[in-house]
């Protein structure tokens, strides 16, 4: 799974019937994960009622596809949880090259929340 932030929602009336009533959110991944085609975002199904601005955990691939109850849904990303807090061992993040993409976006918001 990867961490990301919800930055938008997709509205679509005409859609694959297997996606009926499925909420689709736009997620910008934190860290090293690069979505295909250089889009810097991915569209994920949401069953946990995430909203714009939430930090979320996104499941990719086959488990995401099968999350809607069948094996043939046109889905490859699904939000599985809304992040409340991330506890990080900051000493492990300090060596150069360790988790560069996680450090910056999460440092301000999430790490400080972990200290509360």
């Amino acid at each position, binding site marked *: 799974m990867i*961490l990301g932030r919800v930055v938008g929602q997709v509205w679509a009336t005409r859609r694959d019937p297997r996606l009926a009533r499925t909420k689709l959110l736009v997620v910008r991944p934190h860290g090293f994960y690069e979505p295909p085609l250089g889009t810097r975002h991915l569209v994920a199904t949401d069953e946990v009622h995430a909203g714009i601005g939430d930090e979320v955990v996104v499941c990719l691939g086959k488990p995401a596809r099968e999350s809607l109850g069948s094996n043939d849904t046109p889905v490859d990303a699904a939000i599985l949880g809304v992040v409340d807090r991330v506890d*990080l061992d900051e000493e492990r993040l300090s060596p150069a090259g360790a988790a560069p993409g996680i450090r910056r976006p999460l440092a301000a918001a999430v790490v400080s929340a972990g200290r509360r």
Partner: protein
Amino acid sequence: MIRGTVLGQVWAARRSRGLDGRKLVLVAARDADGAATGGVVVAVDTLDARTGEDVTVAFGSGARNVLRPGAENRDLLCDAAVAAIVEGAG
């Protein structure tokens, strides 16, 4: 599977059914020489790995077998899970 080091824990009260009560950890990936690659992944942890411990992470639909083995695990939203806590590697 990959090797990595546990960086910390992710707390998420609102989560998919089937993952209730499961611990989520952040794991920094390591390359074959043991150096951090900069890649970070969130994995389900059933083995109670602690921060700083070396672990192996299983990816893909096989990761669901860590939570619930067998064909009846298709409802689980999990594509990465801690499969082992590494004590040593040659």
